[in-house]
């Protein structure tokens, strides 16, 4: 059956308008000039209807670099052509099947990227961090140290940020005692780099470790510690972070998360909230794992030097007070009781070795009261 009618033809070589006779013949669309010459002969299998405002059917060859176009305003002819050509939405909307496919493939992509974030990123960070040269970690530590100091060194009211910096006998004794405690632990830990542990003037009950072996023990923690072993337990935990190179790992993990959430996923208006939520949940999962590993390391270290492996758990439970109210996935540390239970599985050495003499401990307790 042959349907014919008129149309407008652009040959893709010039912008001239050609008024043409169009013939639908079986699986072929023929475009003829008024003098009968065939301008184009297209197979319906190769033809795609293209986006036009309603009323005009525009067809072209799929993947035609020259962009030849036939426009049909004749409704009967348009219907005949559409009946044979591939279906497409003429308003230019991506068709339903493509949409569904995009959504399904996107879900697959999201699933694999989230999987990559949960397992792949920490795994890669674990593998890469130990391979990086110590010198690089030292530089990273120095860079972070500058920022951290600017952030933390706020409330010392004229006194230096570091405690026990003075030249008086008291400061010297305190420094020596602290260095002795750190030295005992460091010797048994077998670290790839030298520690630089300091007590600093911050009232929070906390201690932090930066890449490159920098440990800052806050004044607030010294005040709350009831025994040498509690302070040593905290130090052991922080030394665990140094041994595991957790600072470097955290940087790598954060870069990995930025790539997955922010660059590959979440780039749409309002997507910032999704990105922040995903990053929070995932990076908390990473740090909870790292904290547990550091607890384990610290407790083992305490056992090795003859200290009390349970002391860290004791101070954690004591200072965390009433149970936290935040849900598990919003915590960057596991809960104190959980951590204490885990460390309590490690036996206490008997007899316990005194890590410092009572005067030495007293000197550390008052390390921040001097200049």
């Amino acid at each position, binding site marked *: 059956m042959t349907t014919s009618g008129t149309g407008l033809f652009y040959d893709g070589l010039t912008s001239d308008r050609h008024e043409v006779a169009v013939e639908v013949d079986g699986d072929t669309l023929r475009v003829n000039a008024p003098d009968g010459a065939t301008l184009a002969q297209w197979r319906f299998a190769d033809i795609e209807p293209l986006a036009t405002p309603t009323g005009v059917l525009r067809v072209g060859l799929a993947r035609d670099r020259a962009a030849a176009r036939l426009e049909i305003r004749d409704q009967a002819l348009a219907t005949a052509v559409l009946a044979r050509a591939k279906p497409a939405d003429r308003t230019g909307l991506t068709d339903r099947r493509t949409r569904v496919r995009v959504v399904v493939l996107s879900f697959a992509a999201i699933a694999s990227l989230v999987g990559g974030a949960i397992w792949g990123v920490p795994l890669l960070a674990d593998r890469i961090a130990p391979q990086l040269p110590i010198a690089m970690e030292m530089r990273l530590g120095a860079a972070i140290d500058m920022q951290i100091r600017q952030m933390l060194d706020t409330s010392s009211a004229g006194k230096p940020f570091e405690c026990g910096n003075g030249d008086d006998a008291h400061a010297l004794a305190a420094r020596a005692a602290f260095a002795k405690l750190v030295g005992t632990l460091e010797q048994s830990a077998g670290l790839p780099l030298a520690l630089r542990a300091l007590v600093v003037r911050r009232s929070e009950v906390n201690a932090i470790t930066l890449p490159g072996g920098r440990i800052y023990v806050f004044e607030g923690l010294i005040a709350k510690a009831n025994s040498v072993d509690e302070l040593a337990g905290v130090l052991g935990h922080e030394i665990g972070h140094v041994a595991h190179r957790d600072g470097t790992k955290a940087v790598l993990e954060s870069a990995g998360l930025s790539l997955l959430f922010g*660059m590959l996923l979440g780039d749409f208006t309002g997507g910032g909230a*999704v990105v922040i939520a995903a990053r929070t949940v995932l990076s908390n999962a990473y740090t909870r794992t790292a904290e547990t590993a550091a607890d384990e390391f610290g407790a083992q270290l305490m056992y090795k030097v003859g200290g009390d492996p349970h002391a860290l758990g004791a101070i954690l439970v004591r200072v965390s007070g009433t149970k936290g109210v935040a849900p598990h996935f919003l915590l960057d540390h596991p809960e104190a009781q959980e951590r204490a239970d885990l460390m309590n599985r490690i036996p206490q050495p008997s007899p316990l070795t005194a890590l410092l003499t009572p005067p030495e401990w007293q000197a550390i307790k008052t390390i921040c009261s001097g200049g």
Partner: protein
Amino acid sequence: MTFAEHTDAAAYEAPPGIPAPSPSPVRLCFVGDRRAYWRLMVRGALLQAITLGIYRFWLFTDMRRFLWASTEVEGDTLEYTGTAVELLLGFLMAIGILIPIYALFFLASLEFGLISRLSGVVAFVVLAWFGQYAAYRARRYRLTRTVFRGLRFHQTGSPVRYALRAMLWWIAIGLTLGLAYPWMVANLERYKMRNTFYGDLGGRFTGAGWRLFARGLLIWLLVLGPIAAGIVAVAQVLDWPVIGRALSNPSSPAAWIAVAGSEQNKVAFGLLAGAFSWAVIIGIILYPAYQAIVMRWWLGGLWLGKAAAASDLRMRRYYGAYLRYLFYVLLFSIAFAIVIGGAIGLGVVALRGQIDFSVRSIVRDGAVAAAVIVAYVIYILGVSTIYQVVVKMRLWQVALESMQITNLAALDHVRATAATSSAVGEGLADALGTGGI
């Protein structure tokens, strides 16, 4: 075989439904159906949300197809032939290019000394340059995907040199407090249009910088003038002796408290804050006027061969679009608040007595957090969709309908030359946030 040899368009009468070529100016038409665009955008927003943004390549392609097809020039509409898969691949390639660059800057920031301190500045400059580079290449991609009467547009010129030129202009703008802006736009448009072709027909841009300067000067004076005046006034009012004492002894808190306590200084800071708030408020109010001035000036400078564009764009039509946007956002916000309020109310009633809120629950807290995020995303996406339709599409339409082309017959016998280009520029522009429709 060339068809042109044995066909002669001039030998035929104009077919029915196509107006005969007229020597008088031809006004462009927007033939899109607003409701169809709403459907496209709402569906696109939802699909973007559930695919965490991956659908955007398909949405952008749909938007362009719609807008191009809605642009009618004397009975012929434009056609956008780009595909979403091209955009996706371009984006992935762009990520591949950017990751090593980001890694390099990270490593550089770890070095001590000058490199470390400079790496932030260098990163900013390099990425800004990349943004301009990407914008130029993205323009080439869009032009080569634009078909009119069976011929493609294309763009020559070097994106590297364009980006360099744009960067130098931005420095000039910084130095002149924005006064150089009109000359920058004129210069960059000249470069872009000089390298723009429809088939073998070259474009050019004749808009003069000083003309835009003259039209925009009032806006500049109204926005930045008070800041300049404010700075001068503040310099007069400030209590210099007190400030001098504080500067000579910067670690003394008392000296700084004296600076903050001085009545003169309070007045000065008030003046400065007032000047800045004025600039922000007036800037927002005058933004549509500024957009309309630039658009009208820009359209009036466009040439393609001997065909020239002119525009009689009215500012009030731009303001109309923005006012309607504010109104729709207000309606949407009210509806959103009612739905959220109702959902919370229903939830509280339905779950009363079943949940003990004094006991912590991971599942409940997680559900609440997820619900808050979902609600936020829906609201922001809703507002952005309203903006896309009520402002973006409307401005496109208004600008288009303001355009008249004289000597349109210059486009009648153009020959094809163009080849297509890759979408890496689009991908870079997307990754760097410098993309556009």
